[in-house]
């Protein structure tokens, strides 16, 4: 990407067209790009195929807002409360296509895409209905040992969306804390949208190149977006807002209830600043841990 003036969240999200496949929620319950999800809803982007491992609420919200026609994931729900009602109702009423994965099979599909190979083999899935009921995977005999393996075909999303701690205007990104399948999803994607707590200069990124998780040539846009992962936690920045997950669960068991919830939390706010005014929780980090010093140099 070119390092001119950075786009706003609205501008960057408008590049994601209806009908796209979008990988998001890749660090599992950590660093979920909710700000992008809500902006997709506000812009009325639809017919999306969402790709991810567990999707802790994000996919349920997008389904509730009518943005989704397909899901390729291992788990869709609410980790604090269990069921995601909008997902469940949409599946039970055949309103969305669902491709059932395990966490590892979606990880491997993206990893194959990132590695530029048509598939990766695994010893998982064997004996499960994820494999038996699907025509996605292939069964093969390993030519070296004769073992049975499953071949998981590559998935290459149109977009991968990531929320990170800091990024340079050039598009180089530092992340820390667990990353789930962020790395393969970034490698596999046609376009990558990075929202970040903080835009920093390139010299900050280059002071610690082993911290760099994403490099610029993979990145389509960087957007500064503090609290972009709320209600999920972000290492070094804010804790999980668990009450939000519980409230969402209790407030979205019907479509009408969801619409009311979304009117308050999604459509009723212009942007992330207004959104954060709705949040009634102190999520700040009160016990910081500073990473031990590391030097490079010559």
């Amino acid at each position, binding site marked *: 990407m070119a390092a001119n003036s950075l786009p706003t969240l609205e501008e960057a999200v408008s590049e994601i067209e209806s009908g796209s496949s979008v990988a998001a929620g890749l660090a*599992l319950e950590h660093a979920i790009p909710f700000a992008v999800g809500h902006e997709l809803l506000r812009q009325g982007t639809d017919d999306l195929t969402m790709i991810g491992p567990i999707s802790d609420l994000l996919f349920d919200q997008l389904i509730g807002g009518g943005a989704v026609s397909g899901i390729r994931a291992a788990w*869709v729900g609410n980790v604090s409360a269990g069921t995601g009602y909008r997902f469940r109702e949409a599946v039970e009423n055949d309103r969305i296509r669902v491709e059932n994965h395990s*966490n*590892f099979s979606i990880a491997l599909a993206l990893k194959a895409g990132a590695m530029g190979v048509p598939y990766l083999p695994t010893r998982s899935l064997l004996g*499960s209905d994820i494999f038996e009921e699907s025509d996605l995977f292939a069964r093969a005999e390993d030519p070296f040992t004769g073992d*049975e393996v499953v071949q998981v075909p590559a998935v290459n999303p149109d977009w991968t969306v990531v929320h990170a701690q800091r990024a340079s205007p050039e598009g180089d990104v530092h992340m820390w804390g*667990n990353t789930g399948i962020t790395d393969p999803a970034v490698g596999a994607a046609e376009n990558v949208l990075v929202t970040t707590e903080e835009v920093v200069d390139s010299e900050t990124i280059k002071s610690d190149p082993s911290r760099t998780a994403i490099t610029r040539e993979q990145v389509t846009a960087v957007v500064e977006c503090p609290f972009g992962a709320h209600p999920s936690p972000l290492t070094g920045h804010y804790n*999980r807002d*668990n009450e939000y997950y519980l409230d969402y669960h209790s407030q979205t068991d019907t479509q009408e209830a969801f619409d009311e919830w979304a009117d308050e939390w999604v459509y009723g706010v212009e942007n992330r600043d207004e959104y954060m005014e709705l949040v009634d929780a102190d999520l700040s980090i009160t016990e910081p841990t500073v990473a031990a010093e590391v030097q490079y140099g010559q």
Partner: protein
Amino acid sequence: MASEEYTDRELMVSAAAAEIDNGDTAFVGMRLPLIAFQVAVSTHAPDSMAVYESGVVRDAPADGFIHTMCDLPNLNRAVSTTGMIDIMSRLQRGDVDVGFLGGAEVDRYGNLNTTRVRAGDREVRLPGSGGACDIACMADRTVLLMPHEPRRFVEEVNYVTSPGHASDGSGRENHPAPGGGPSALVTSKATFGFHDGELYLRSTHPGVDADDVLADFPWDVNTASDVGEGTVTTTSKPTGEELELIRTFDPDGFWT
């Protein structure tokens, strides 16, 4: 069936913790196992490690309550925070000793369903596998945890999310998945083992009658004595130390 001393779920956590041996690498997912690992590493298994599919590796309890594996107290002062391919690779190459699984349905061979169940005419969609299928396929052994409700015990699960043992009595011998398969089921009333791949009653929780437990199953469940594994015992109550730990790790009883 909470007693005045501890809740059902506290007992389940205690029983699940007992399934972690010292030195084990345990694959921990959502809910009760989050607490069970912390109890085990604080008591009889100080050299055990937990790996979480999000990419976290820990050797000690989090210093604060965790709703999920990715709550910041679980990342703070972890041994490693990495990615899923790293963790799943450890599982796939056989380095995970024990994994924990929940389920909406279980059958006599330990197959689990967390994808979709029938409720009368209706099929109810559940969240899905997450990492459960991977753990079920590849961990050296798995421990299953679920509330003791008769509707969950079925002759054949509606969907095999997480494979158990082969139905021919060979356990995992003739099963395509490489791991060891289920070694225990812990419910809110009893614990079960697996013998030749089939579920048997190992112990009942204090105050629970074995016949009542067996009556909840649609097949004739074996008991420990049927399969030559001793006799049905009474599950150990959580110790005072365990209860104190559980209530430290989950002070508001969110999971327990």
